[in-house]
Structure formats: C-alpha cells, structure tokens
C-alpha cells in the first residue's frame, strides 16, 4: 500500500495529540474533547453528504442512538462500556441501513431525503422523551465510576486522546474510502446518478453502504458524548443541535474532503466559544444561543463566498501564491 497520501493525517493527528502537553487548562481540554466528538459526528455526515451527495438534516438520529445505546446498555444491562461501544455503533449502522432502505428504495433525493431524515430524528426524539425504558423526560444518568476499565478518565487528557484516536481512525478510513472503488462510485453517484448507473454502479447499494457507515461513525460520537457527560436526555441526544453541527462542520470546513469536518468543527466551536465569552464580558451576562447566530452567519458566508469551505479557500490562495511565483 502506498503510504505517502496518509502522511498529512499522521502529522495533523500528532500535532493534535501534543496539544494537551502545552495547554493544560480544563476549559481548553474540555473544548478540544468536545470538538473531537463533533468532528466524529461530522465525519459520519461527510461520508453520506459530502462524498455521497445525500444531505441529511437528521444525523441526530445516529448520534442519539449511539448515545442512548451506550448509556442504556450500561445502566439497564450492566454491560461494560468497552463492549457497549461497538454494540452501540452496530446499532447506529443498523438504524442507518433501515432509514436508507426506506428512503433510497423510495427514490428520495435532495430536499425530500433531507426532510425524511429530519422527520426520523424528531420521531426518535419524541419517542425517547416519552418511553420509560429510555428514562423519559428525566433522561439517563450513567453512574460515576472512574477508571479506564469503565471508560471514565480522571485525567481529562486521556478522554481527549481517546476521542482523538477515534478521529484519527475515521480520517484514515475516510481517505482509504475516497481512494477505493467504493469511494469512486459514491462520488460518481453524487455527481450524476444516471451516468454512474450506465457505468455499472449499483447506485442503491452504494448509497445504502454509505448511510450504514455514516450511521456507525456518528453513533460513535454519541458514545463518546455519553462517556464524557454521563448524562443524557432526548433533547441532548436526538435534538436538532447535533444534526445542525454535524452538517455545518463539513460545509464550513470543506464538504467531501478528508479534513473538512475536523477543520469545520474546530472553526465552528472555536468561534462559538469566543463569541459567547465576548458577549458575556460585554454585557455582563451570558446570552444563550448567541453562538447559534455566529453559526448562521458562518453558513451564509460559506455558501456565498466559499462553497468549498475553509479548505477550498485555502487551496485557492495557495494556488494563487504558487501561480504568482513561477
């Protein structure tokens, strides 16, 4: 296997892994861990939406399924989190396959597919809020049991590194996928489904594979969320906030690129934090939801001026620099 294309991933991950050695404040570590969790959720969205062109507005359905499965398997069934995690991811994949089966077989595309995913997420949210098994409106509390065997770390750096290792794995997976036959067929389906079919691409099977993989990855983000906060309710797990962040991060970072979700998540959350702090200092009190205003403005700016995201902008600038220096 040719290793050269994977070098940038190794460098970026190494750089991120070394960050906590310099930055030791709890706020920064919490921010970094959270950014990694959002990156994971966004990376899942990116495979289906970025590479496959199937825009989902309801990735909360996978995030929430992963998060609830992780919590309930521990609380209700006493399963160790290290075993619960792959089970929760498998469940996320199964939900992905089921939703894909229902919507792609019905030939839903574009905004129709987006609306259906949004509807699924809402159905799951309302059900989780109503059902006793999931803790209803009170939510689920995972008992505090610090120790690596319970996937709860006293040292915040460890939980960051764990999230980072998941991000690293999905970066490698995404790059490997984009260079494979499956990746080429997925992009072909995004660009022109008719033409792809003419070239022997089973468009339905390709989309089903993509949404299954996407579901598993985004579910893993939910698992890490559960282990980080040890508390869940329906609005946290299945709320629209995560659907929005999972799709905003890749769009802002660079849709259909390996690093897009990572760059987007860091930019998005970073700006959100900065704004929240700035407004709190300015007005003397926190204004809830002010970061969402920033997200909205960012989205508008991206759609208008950087349709290929931050990475696309950077590439454009680099290209011009190179062009200026022959």
């Amino acid at each position, binding site marked *: 296997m040719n290793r050269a294309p994977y070098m940038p991933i190794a460098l970026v991950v190494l750089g991120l892994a070394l960050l906590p050695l310099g930055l030791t404040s709890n706020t920064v570590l919490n921010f970094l861990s959270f950014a990694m969790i959002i990156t994971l959720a966004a990376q899942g969205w990116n495979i289906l939406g970025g590479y496959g062109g199937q825009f989902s507005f309801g990735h909360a359905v996978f995030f929430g399924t992963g998060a609830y499965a992780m919590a309930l398997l521990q609380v209700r069934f006493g399963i160790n989190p290290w075993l619960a995690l792959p089970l929760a991811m498998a469940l996320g994949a199964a939900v992905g396959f089921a939703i894909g089966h229902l919507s792609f077989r019905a030939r839903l595309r574009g905004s129709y597919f987006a609306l259906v995913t949004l509807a699924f997420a809402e159905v799951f949210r309302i059900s989780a809020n109503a059902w006793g098994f999931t803790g209803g409106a009170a939510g689920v509390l995972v008992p505090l049991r610090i120790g690596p065997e319970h996937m709860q770390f006293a040292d915040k750096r460890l939980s960051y590194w764990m999230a980072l290792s998941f991000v690293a794995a999905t970066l490698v997976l995404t790059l490997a996928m984009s260079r494979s*036959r499956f990746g*080429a067929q997925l992009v072909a389906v995004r660009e*022109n489904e008719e033409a792809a079919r*003419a*070239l022997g691409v089973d468009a339905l099977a390709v989309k089903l594979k993509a949404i299954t993989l996407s579901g598993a990855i985004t579910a893993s983000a939910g698992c890490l969320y559960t282990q980080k906060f040890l508390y869940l309710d329906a609005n946290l797990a299945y709320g629209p906030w995560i659907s929005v962040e999972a799709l905003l991060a890749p769009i802002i970072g660079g849709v259909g690129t390996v690093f897009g979700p990572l760059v987007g998540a860091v930019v998005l959350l970073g700006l959100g934090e900065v704004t929240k702090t700035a407004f709190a200092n300015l007005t003397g009190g926190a204004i809830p939801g002010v970061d969402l205003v920033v997200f909205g403005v960012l989205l508008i700016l991206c759609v208008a001026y950087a349709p290929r995201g931050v990475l696309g902008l950077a590439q454009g600038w680099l290209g011009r620099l190179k062009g200026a220096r022959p």
Partner: protein
Amino acid sequence: MSALLSVQGVTKRFGGLTAVDNASLDVVKGSITGLIGPNGAGKTTLFTVIAGFEAASAGTVLFEGRDITGLPAHVRAVGGIARTFQIVQPFAGLSVRENIAVGAFLRHKARHAALEQADAVGHQVGLGPLLDQSAGQLTVAGRKRLELARALATAPRLLLLDEVLAGLNPSEIRDMMPVVQAIRSSGVTILIVEHVMQAVMSLCDTVHVLAQGRIIAAGPPGTVSRDPAVIEAYLGHGAAARMQAQDVRQAEDVRQAEDLRQSQARGQAPGAPHA
C-alpha cells in the same frame, strides 16, 4: 454471423404515446450498426430500453442469446453493455482521469489498475493531454470524447453510442470517425444512433431506420438511403415520387443538352431536324 444483440418486438409506451412500436433489430457481432430516423422517431427511447434505463412495455431484448429484458442498467453494464448519453453527463466536479476511472473501476478493484486503465483509454480517444483537467472545463468535442472514454473503460462487448458526433464541427467529426473505427477494430461491437449522414454512410455496415416508432427499413447504408419509404420518412409524403420525377427531368435536361452540343458540333442550327 451471429447476433450479439437481438431486439425482438420491443414496444415502449409513455401513457397514450407509443414511442417505440414493435421494433425488432439484430446487431451482428463485430459490426457497426446504425440506427437512424427523423427527429422524434424513438431512437433514443429504443436505446434507453436496450441499455436498461427504461423498462420495455412489451418485447424482449437478448444479449449473447440471454434474455436481459428485466435486468437493471447497472447489471447490463456489468454484463458488457455500455452506453453514452446524447446529452453529455460528465461528473463535472471530477477530473477527466477520475471520470474515466469510474468506468474502469467496474473491472479493476485496485486504484492503480483502474487509473492505469483510465489513462490508456483516455489516450485511445485523444484525451491524453487533458487527463488532469476538470471535466466541467472541457469543450463540447472534449465532453463527447469523455462520454466515449468512460463507456469504453468499462470494457464493453457492446457499445451503444447516442449521437456522439452531434454538435461537432466537420473537422471534429473527421477526427472522431477513426476513433470509432479503431474501437470496432479492437473487437467491440457498436450500435450507433446518428444524424450526421456522412458518418453513418462511411461507418456503418448495416443501418436500421426507425420512423414513428417503427422499423421501416434495414440493410446496407447505400441501399437504405435510396429506399423510397426512408426518403418519405425524412422528407414527407410524396417526396420519393417528386425526387424520382426530378431525377427523370434532370436526365431529360442532360440528354437535351447533350443533343444540343452534338448538333452544334456538326454545324447545324439548334432545333433543326437531324440529317
């Protein structure tokens, strides 16, 4: 001579409109077979039925003797049937090489093998220097070549070409014809829908003529182009008779002119009785 593709009594209805009406044709292995007809005759519809993009309302399609009527398009592509689109459908966001590689991935699982195959096919159709360009930036002629290259990269046994010459200028057509001939020489059977008659005449071994959904004539291009039914289909009712009458008149004019020339040569006044 065996038929690679055999279309038997295919009918395609869209609601009340019968686009293809009980059409039958055979494509002989190793041939370039043409499908011509006036605009709206149903050529492209018949093509989409053969390629599996539309289900036939009636009739069967046999490929290498097997009934493929019920198979979806991508399975037919795996089986060895590739098509191009009349309205070109490039993957605009990808480079030319990546476009062709999507076709090549059908037979090659490994990336390097698919890319090598894409390069080879790209050079074969004359896209060699443009492989790294974005497909969206190609000229019309370039896009037509790309359609051809992508289909060819799937290593088909039957290639369905839907007006690959339409929209090209005469010199581009001259450049493209040897490419099509070379594909046939490499062992790929071709069924071609085409309006450019000069190309049909020189490329095709056999031509089938479709008019108002029906096959009205079939045979070598030279014969078919003189068929009165074909002339009428293109130029309207009575056209064949008018053209024949015109031919007779022209022949008469020629004869009279010849007479005149001969009588002048003998030094006689025009119109004077022959000696």
